[in-house]
């Protein structure tokens, strides 16, 4: 067993442990932190496959941006885990059965000889930069979906604004101009009441 195989198994073990903790942790903050650990180790495995751009993008985008936001949200919300876990044991048999079926099927297909690429073919020749190649493809062959993805992000932004923006809030700062020009009758009401006898 050479060194890279050892590293691979080491990272994979951490990845599986972290992924399990994501769904079993009682505290949602711990779950989010374990998800970050899972992303880190996945990034490591991708880096070993010489997909360094994907590895860096995963860590920068997911761990750096998405998960930090996610942690903020989780910390601010008061999540009652016991209510979420209600009925867990009732659904477990059916869910486990379906999950097992899926794992078996996927194992059958993905484990077949077809996907066993020989090491010799999977090596990137020297002098080729992964990042450079992806960058070049994005602005040449893939420019159409690339531009459309930009439009999707724009739509996401529009949707976020339209669903949350509720107009400009009136500030509570006092306006000196109005205070100076205020008249007595704006503040005081003179009532005429009949005088009560005796």
């Amino acid at each position, binding site marked *: 067993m050479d060194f890279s195989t050892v590293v691979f198994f080491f990272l994979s073990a951490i990845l599986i442990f972290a992924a399990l903790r994501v769904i079993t942790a009682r505290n949602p903050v711990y779950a989010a932190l374990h998800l970050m650990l899972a992303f880190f180790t996945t990034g490591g495995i991708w880096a070993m496959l010489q997909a360094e751009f994907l590895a860096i993008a995963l860590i920068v985008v997911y761990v750096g941006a998405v998960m930090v936001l996610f942690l903020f949200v989780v910390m601010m919300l008061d999540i009652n885990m016991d209510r979420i876990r209600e009925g867990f044991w009732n659904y477990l048999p059916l869910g486990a059965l379906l999950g097992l079926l899926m794992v078996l099927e996927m194992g059958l*297909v993905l484990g077949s000889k077809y996907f066993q690429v020989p090491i010799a073919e999977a090596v990137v020749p020297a002098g080729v930069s992964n990042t450079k190649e992806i960058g070049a493809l994005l602005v040449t062959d*893939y420019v*159409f979906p690339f531009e459309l993805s930009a439009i999707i992000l724009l739509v996401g932004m529009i949707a976020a604004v*339209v669903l949350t923006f509720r107009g400009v809030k009136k500030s509570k700062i006092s306006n000196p101009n109005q205070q100076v020009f205020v008249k007595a009758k704006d503040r005081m009401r003179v009532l005429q009441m009949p005088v009560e006898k005796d």
Partner: protein
Amino acid sequence: MFDNFVIPDFLPAAPEIFLATMAMFILVVDLFVKDSRRTIVFVLTQLTLIACAAIQLYTSTGEITYTFSNMFVDDMMADLLKMFVYLTMIMVMFYSRAYLFERPNMNKGEFYVLALFATLGMLVMISANNFVTIYVGLELLSLSLYAMVAMNRDSLASTEAAMKYFVLGALASGMLLYGMSMIYGATGTLEITEIAESLYRGETNKTVLIFGLVFLVSGLAFKLGVVPFHMWIPDVYHGAPTPVTLLIGSAPKLAAFAIVMRLLVSGLITLSQDWQGMLIILSVLSMAIGNLAAIAQTNLKRMLAYSAISHMGFMLLGIVTGVVSGDARYALNAYSSAMFYVIAYVLMTMGAFGVILLMSRAGFEADQLDDYKGLNKRSPWFAFIMLMIMFSMAGVPFFIGFFAKFSVLQAVVAAGYLWLAIVAVLFSLIGAFYYLRVVKLMYFDAPEDETPISTGMDMRILISANGLAVAILGIFPQVIMSLCAYALLRSL
């Protein structure tokens, strides 16, 4: 690195580029428009759609043209479907106008911008020749629609519908993507025409292909809304604001038809035996559950949702009968009947939701079946239009819906699936019950609500035109039928 790169030909995608530019332009214009003058945004949106149709007509060559490194294809099928998408969107916007202007919290500029972006998504899906393009177009359409469903954010039903739509839609996209990646694994390419060639040469791993195909068909079934992937349709149709329901129920069906054609027929025709078997099951289940569940509904929008499920099941019959045990003699006939069915369905569903929008007014939705009691006494003409649309949906002869059903059944019988044709007719008969119930409510029951129906002139003209189109195209179905056949002949 860029040595062998040539600037792509932008002309075939001119309508898409124009639409994207105008949508962003309108987004900026809307910032400077007061809420009371939203008509400007409305007019700009309509002009954009009309201009897109004009550009489409002007740039159409009728030849199959690939551009953007074969990511984008422009053929007659795409041109025809896109023209119908523009027409549908223009009608949807006109129908929605009064409804939106009566409800200021809904009538934001973003509604129009998101509708334009959704249109862009549909156009991209229709013209896609690559898995990546299909997926990106689908996401653009879906994201815009999720936001539009949730736009009435103070309504609990709308929020719930948006949440369900979003979660299930994301799941469906995931399945579609997983299927695509499996097929990529088996063929080594994402381009649909290359996949077809690679499969034809027969040097691919069949297990991986079928595994991917199952996910692909499930994802497509979700987007079409056929059983057993239909759970989102009734809730979304019911919960969404009626203009958004009208939008979801009409034009996207054309785009969904296009991606089914591109993925299954253009790309995976070699596997037709496998996907036809899956689609037959989906189709029979949809017709059964759609028609039976619609009977139990008291809400017209929900009833039309189940009717949509059954109609999509019926449409799939046209797609499964194209190739019979390797013999593609009837392919053109079958696929053009499915295309005719989709176009006819979109026309009818637009009319039905148009009447719901016409009957509703500020603070009143007119989506219960009881709201249509005695419509004949309140407005004989609108009741007559609704009658024509309901008859057409039920498949009563000499409306367009009858010929749509007839041509699909003809294809089914020609392909030798007699039992399938009998099942389809039986479920259509069951379906006729709930369509005719609407007619009975309108003509034979006393009205509960005597409020006069007040609508603008444009709405009256358009809904009349829509109703009459259902009747007149039923007398001359060859007009659209021959257009569909010609477009497919030039494209396949």
